[in-house]
Structures are given as C-alpha cells and as structure tokens.
C-alpha cells in the first residue's frame, strides 16, 4: 500500500508565500521586499521549484507591442500553496512550544 508523501516547505518558500498572499508580484519585487533574505540569483530557482510543487503559479507580463527585451514573470500563490504554508506555520508554532506551555 502506497504511503502518501507529505509536501515539504522550506523557510524561504514560506517567506515567499507570505509575500504572495495578497497579490501577484515580480521576482525582483520579492527580492527587494525581503530585506536581504532572498537573493536575486537564486530566487527564480526557488520559484521554479515551488511551481513544480504547485505552491505558486506564474505568467508572463503583458507588454505593449514593440516592447524591447524579455518579458518578466508575475507570480501568485495557489490555494494549495497557502494551505500547506498555513499548516506548516501551525506545525512550527506547535513544535516551538515548551512542554509546560503545551500542557496549558
């Protein structure tokens, strides 16, 4: 019988989902608003990984005809991603409790 594989979420992925909760953003926006926690070189690797896991979705920006250069990508959190994020948040809070606190 196959065992259900639980989704994993790193602290960086959790931070990105926090920032994408309200609205969609560009990768560069995420880096700028992370106060140094996200790096420009690696943010797209993390976002691609998150997209594979189904935590985020992305689309190319709409551009005016004749615009020069490559189009940027806009990212937004998925319902599933936010659900996993919230579950991990609860888990982290629960595991951070000391035994005395847990007994209430």
């Amino acid at each position, binding site marked *: 019988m196959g065992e259900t594989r639980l989704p994993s979420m790193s602290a960086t992925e959790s931070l990105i989902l926090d920032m994408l909760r309200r609205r969609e953003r560009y990768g560069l926006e995420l880096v700028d608003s992370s106060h140094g926690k996200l790096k420009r*070189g690696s943010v797209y690797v993390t976002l*691609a990984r998150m997209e594979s896991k189904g935590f985020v979705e992305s689309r190319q920006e709409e551009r005016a005809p004749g615009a020069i250069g490559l189009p940027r990508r806009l990212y937004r959190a998925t319902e599933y991603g936010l659900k996993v994020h919230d579950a991990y948040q609860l888990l982290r809070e629960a595991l951070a409790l000391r035994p005395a606190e847990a007994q209430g």
Partner: protein
Amino acid sequence: MTFVATITALSTRFLTERSFDLIVAPALADFELDAAAGLRSVAMARCSVLVAFVGAIWEDAVRGGDLATFAGLVCIPACYYTFFFLLGLPEGMNRLSSTIVAGLVLAVITLSLAPAIVCFWPDRDTRNTPTER
C-alpha cells in the same frame, strides 16, 4: 555576441525549455531592466544571471534524476585511466613528485569528465533568440 545572447545560446545547449523559461529568462529580463535603468553595476547583474543559470543546470540534473547516470559515466573512465596509470608505474606513486601526481590526477579528471559532459546533454529544443541589445 551580447551577454544575453551568450546565456541564451548556452541555455539552448544545456537546459530544458522549462528551466530556461522559469529560471534563466526572468533573470535575463531583470538584467535588461537593470541595464536600462542603470540601477546596479553590470558585473553584479551578470553575476545574478550566472547564478540563475548554474541553478537551472542543477535543477535539470536533480529533477531528471540523472545525477547517478552522470556519476556512473564519469566513474567508468576514471577507473580505467587510474588503473592504466597505476600499471605504468611499477614502483608505485611514492617515488613520484607531488607535481606529477597532481598532473596525473588532473589528467584522470579531465579525461573522465570531459567526454561525460559532452555526451550527457543532448541538443535541446531550439527557441527564439531574444532581441539583441
């Protein structure tokens, strides 16, 4: 050849289209944006793109589960050449100077790694080259 064209050409050769679209292309778009706005030093901006490119190669290797295959392809010639060199040294490695030993190690690595690298990555799908700047 511009930096953007060089990275795109390397991506065409070594990366899957998915990794290019999701990792390298957005990094290149940021690079172009920076260049147009003059916000960051060119060296720093290029460095970010190169980090993204290396990350994309790593992602392709890990996601494809091909690391073990690649390691195997490197190990086979490495074992062959090591055995070959040891046979040629009846008195063992102890009498050799450290420079020669380092040279032999380098030769084994190069002879093993180079063909594996060349053979490992097939031609990827061709894609449109971005606008030259």
